[in-house]
């Protein structure tokens, strides 16, 4: 097994962990953290694909197309986290709670 495959399996596990957390964590902050784990697992898998593609060509590089897409996705994930956190802070201010339950 190569290092690249190893990181791919790591990414797969992170996706599972993040997905599970996103569904079952009761606290919103924990859900946001889980979303970030899920997102980084997805990007790691993408990175593994990029490394394989880059390796074929340059022998020691990573596919620049995939890298560019990953960077774009990282920026989106950051912006999404900021928006989610801002909504959460407003929710805590208004209701004193960190959960989405019992709001109908």
């Amino acid at each position: 097994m190569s290092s690249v495959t190893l990181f791919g399996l790591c990414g797969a596990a992170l996706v599972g962990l993040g997905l599970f957390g996103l569904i079952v964590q009761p606290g919103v902050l924990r859900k946001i953290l889980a979303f970030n784990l899920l997102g980084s697992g997805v990007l790691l898998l993408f990175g593994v694909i990029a490394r394989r593609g880059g390796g074929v060509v340059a022998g020691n590089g990573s596919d620049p197309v995939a890298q560019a897409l990953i960077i774009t996705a990282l920026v989106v994930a950051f912006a999404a986290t900021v928006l989610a956190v801002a909504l959460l802070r407003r929710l805590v201010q208004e209701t004193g709670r960190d959960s989405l339950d019992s709001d109908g």
Partner: protein
Amino acid sequence: MSVALAADAGLALLILGLAVWTSIARTAGGAVIGFMAYGLLVALVWVRLAAVDVALTEAALGSGLTGFVLLGAAARLPRDAPAARPGWGLRLAAGVVSAAVAAGLAAVVLLLPVSAPTLAPAATANLPALGLGNPVTGVLIAYRAIDTLLESVVLVLALIGLWSLARDGDWGGRPGALRSADPSPALVLLAQVLPPLGILVGIYLFWTGAIAPGGAFQGGTVLAAMWVLTLVTGLTRPPRVGGRGVRLLLVAGPALFLAIGVAGFWLGGAFLAYPAGYAKPLILAIEAALTLSIAVALGLLLAGPPLAQSGPRA
């Protein structure tokens, strides 16, 4: 099979361990700290995967700024928040689905075709015509320019969404989430010493992006971090959200990108095409404007929605 593989296995295990810690830590603050450490290790993985451009972005944005935002939220969570956990049925179903997804993906990783199809050669072959040396920048600013253009608009949009969470009476005020009432002297010193250096690093990252790892996103993130440092310590004040100047700065990058793209209809033969021979200066101009807009947008995203003028430091 080597020391490198063993080290990588250790790295992967450490990452998984921190991810589990982030999921089960008892306090929210602990979980966030775990996540920040996790992000730094993931940046290491990006280096191991030969994706230095991504590693820089991950360390600065994915771990650094994201962690900063989450820490701020964790500090304001109610202490007594033992929200009800979902029932056994849902947890079991979620566990089964998540495990199946993870197992399926693991199988996909192991079954990926031997020949890895890729666009890497095409991306590299066209670089000389653009006067660039870093193929990642070539993808972001030329081949897939539309994605980057829309992405820079997404940042502005995220900021509009954030500001829309203000209270009506606070509109027109300054963002107030960062203002620390009593910054420690050490932090103030840091905020005085670090920014000149940080600004140089940020500009270098943008400048070198044409030929080496770096670019507008990485440079803008470093500049934003420096600005935020001075905001936290009160050395600078965030601008009022109603100001036209700050809004011009925010759209400068996407607007210039769009303008040059439209000019491409006539000068380059297509929307978002660069005229032959002028590609590099135009790309540098776009990157410079984007770096500035991204820095301002990220800084303001961290600074939160506006607060009314009657704040402690108004």
